[in-house]
């Protein structure tokens, strides 16, 4: 007959110590995050004055106030409207390129390539691409398209291409994971009914994986929207609002980058405001992705 | 490696032992009933009648065992044939027991004196020995699943049937002797009971063939003589 033992004091102490260690580590990790959010909010909110979202950045200069000299003219450097729209257009084009292409590659990997040597090579390269620094994509597009003056100099669509290259491996990886989650019994059932394989993919696999694919794509978009390096040399410097991707374009990351280069507080404030806007947009995308994934039946 | 369904096989073996053990009970009853006839022992005959309860009890045991096995173990193929055969056999056992009881009941009716015909008594004794032999052979045949031994019972049964007809003839012959003839009538009935016992052993033999081959065939009925002639019974 075995007797039930009570937890020893030593074990209880160890348990408490470990819990303490874990709690402290978590706090340490959260502190920078909290600080960033705090700064974002406090500095960013301050920058959002009237006209912040409705006017484009203009070329006015802000002169610092020199004591003794007459006060400088009022500084109105404008808002970030063209940057927001630029980001939307650039990321939009990047999405249109990367998401369908990525999903198709993922479909090939799961439905046709499977474990073949070619498929494994493709997977390896996709893995490598996820690790490539984002500036390399910018550099690649810069060298290939901007320097060679193909279709103009630094313009919007070249930046979008660089962002698309960055998003592509992310879309492929997440789509492949989601597609693999579709139970093979569903494919079998469809095949056994006499369906050709392509219909199995379009009518069964894709609809079933749908929500997961959307979630993965949204996360890739969120990632792409925040990248600065691919855009630095590829979209050119512009401030005007433009819907033409064949022209140089503004974007939130590049706007923040250029604003931080100025040493006047007005610009820095605007940078914080832009940063807050960008983070808010990305947060929104994340929330939508979560909401969709929660309603999904797979992941 | 232990065989699968160990419990089931054990239960089936025990059931078979119980059913075949019934044949031993029959043999004991047979011996005693014949002794009662030979020595006109009415008390012994009474014991035979009373002891039939044991055979009836054995019948119920085996019957219940078969039901239980069918319900719980779902026997198929060879096992199923054995179970069906056991049910058949235990019914034969019960019928043979009843025949012994009939013999026992005839003893007091045939009177307390001893005027008998020696020939008839001899024939009765020989019939009894033959019946005993057949019961033992049936048991052996089933236990060892021996088809030849089973089929031989048909030939054996012919002996009993021949003796039965002999006794009838002899009884008719002594019909004029007033003192003996009533006793002789009862001896015909006793012979009839013994002949029935013989038929039951042939039924058991048919079950042996069924279990082994899966085919059920009625053995040639040996009670009618091959040649056309006086048709008895």
């Amino acid at each position: 007959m075995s007797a039930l033992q009570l937890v020893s004091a030593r074990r209880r102490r160890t348990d408490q110590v470990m819990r303490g260690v874990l709690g402290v580590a978590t706090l340490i990790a959260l502190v920078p995050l909290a600080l960033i959010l705090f700064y974002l909010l406090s500095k960013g909110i301050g920058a959002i004055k009237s006209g912040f979202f409705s006017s484009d950045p203009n070329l006015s200069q802000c002169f610092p106030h020199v004591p003794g000299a007459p006060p400088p003219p009022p500084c109105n450097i404008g808002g970030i409207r063209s940057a927001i729209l630029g980001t939307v257009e650039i990321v939009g084009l990047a999405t249109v390129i990367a998401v369908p292409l990525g999903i198709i590659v993922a479909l090939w990997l799961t439905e046709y390539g499977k474990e073949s040597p070619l498929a494994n090579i493709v997977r390896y390269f996709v893995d490598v691409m996820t690790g490539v620094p984002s500036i390399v994509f910018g550099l690649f597009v810069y060298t290939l398209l901007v320097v060679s003056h193909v279709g103009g100099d630094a313009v919007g669509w070249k930046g979008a291409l660089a962002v698309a290259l960055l998003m592509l491996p992310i879309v492929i990886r997440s789509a492949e994971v989601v597609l693999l989650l579709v139970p093979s019994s569903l494919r079998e059932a469809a095949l056994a009914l006499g369906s050709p394989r392509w219909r199995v993919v379009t009518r069964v696999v894709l609809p079933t994986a749908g929500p997961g694919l959307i979630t993965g794509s949204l996360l890739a978009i969120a990632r792409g929207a925040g990248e600065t390096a691919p855009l630095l040399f590829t979209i050119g410097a512009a401030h005007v609002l433009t819907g033409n991707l064949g022209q140089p374009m503004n974007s939130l990351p590049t706007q923040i980058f250029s604003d931080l280069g100025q040493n006047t507080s007005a610009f820095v404030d605007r940078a914080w405001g832009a940063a807050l806007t960008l983070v808010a947009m990305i947060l929104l995308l994340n929330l939508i992705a979560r909401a969709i994934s929660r309603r999904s039946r797979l992941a | 490696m232990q065989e699968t369904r160990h419990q089931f096989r054990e239960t089936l073996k025990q059931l078979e032992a119980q059913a075949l053990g019934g044949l031993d009970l029959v043999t004991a009853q047979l011996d005693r009933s014949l002794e009662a006839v030979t020595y006109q022992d009415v008390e012994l005959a009474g014991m035979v009648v009373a002891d039939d309860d044991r055979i009836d009890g054995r019948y119920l045991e085996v019957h219940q065992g078969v039901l239980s096995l069918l319900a719980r173990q779902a026997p198929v193929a060879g096992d199923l044939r054995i179970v069906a055969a056991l049910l058949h056999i235990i019914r034969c056992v019960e019928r043979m027991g009843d025949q012994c009881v009939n013999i026992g009941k005839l003893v007091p009716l045939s009177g307390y004196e001893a005027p008998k015909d020696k020939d008839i008594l001899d024939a009765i004794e020989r019939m009894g020995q033959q019946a005993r032999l057949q019961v033992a052979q049936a048991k052996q045949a089933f236990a060892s699943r021996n088809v030849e031994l089973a089929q031989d019972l048909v030939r054996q049964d012919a002996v009993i049937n021949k003796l039965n007809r002999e006794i009838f003839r002899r009884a008719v012959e002594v019909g004029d002797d007033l003192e003996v003839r009533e006793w002789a009538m009862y001896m015909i009935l006793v012979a009839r009971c013994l002949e029935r016992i013989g038929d039951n052993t042939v039924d058991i033999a048919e079950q042996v063939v069924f279990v082994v081959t899966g085919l059920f065939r009625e053995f040639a009925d040996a009670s009618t003589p091959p040649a056309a002639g006086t048709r008895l019974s």
Partner: protein
Amino acid sequence: MIPPDTESKEQTVSTADQPAGQQASVSQPTPAGDERAQGGHSIICKDLNAYYGQFHSIKGIDFVCPANEVTALIGPSGSGKSTVVRCINRMHEEIPGARAEGSVKLDDLDVYGAGVDVTSVRRLIGMVFQKPNPFPTMSIFDNVAAGLRLTGTRSDNLRERVHRALRAVGLWGEVKNRLNAPGIGLSGGQQQRLCIARTVAVEPEVILMDEPCSALDPVATLKIEELIDELKERYTIVIVTHNMQQAARVANSTAFMLDGELIEHAPTNDIFTNPKDERTERYVTGKFG
């Protein structure tokens, strides 16, 4: 479509003395579908071999499934019974590295014949799997219609065919008021019947069932067995089962397989009262698992 050999079959029907208005068209399913019950369809496998890479899993078997009968395949795990059934509708070749050789004839047509379209084979030979697998994104109606839509069958009376299929499997009463509810909202037994309805809606000639009741409770199992009994009036059914009692209950004939060989194939009654092969006897009486 099936190679041109069928043309001769169709002509035999229409050249019989029939007035012009009465042309029986064999190729399309008729609205009532009753005409299909005549002229059943058999499966004859000859010298069937199957491989998983190097592993020789089915070793040259000859196997016949008579028309409008239920044929059961029993045997221990790994005996190859599921493989045989998957060779019949050519699902076996969907496994990477797997191949099959030999001939499997649906009536006169070898499904492994040169140039035969695999999808048309599977339209004629349907399959029900062990675990019910209704399509999760589709409603009950869409699930049953899936077979028709996935095979690109143009159908004017889609609704009618779906309703008929649901009636045929005994689900109609239970779902008629919620045809748009998701298919996966049904109980296990209902889901399996839904999958059978999906298979039946395509109007195959043969239905293969790979342990269809393994994942179900006893009551659902018995309902499906009743259904199998009704379905055999119109289809030829081949069922793989681990449960010998089930084979004993539903099958007209039973085939015993061991290590990739077909040991014995006989009327079910004979297999379970007097099997000819010692190995069959040992398997059905449980002397080995």
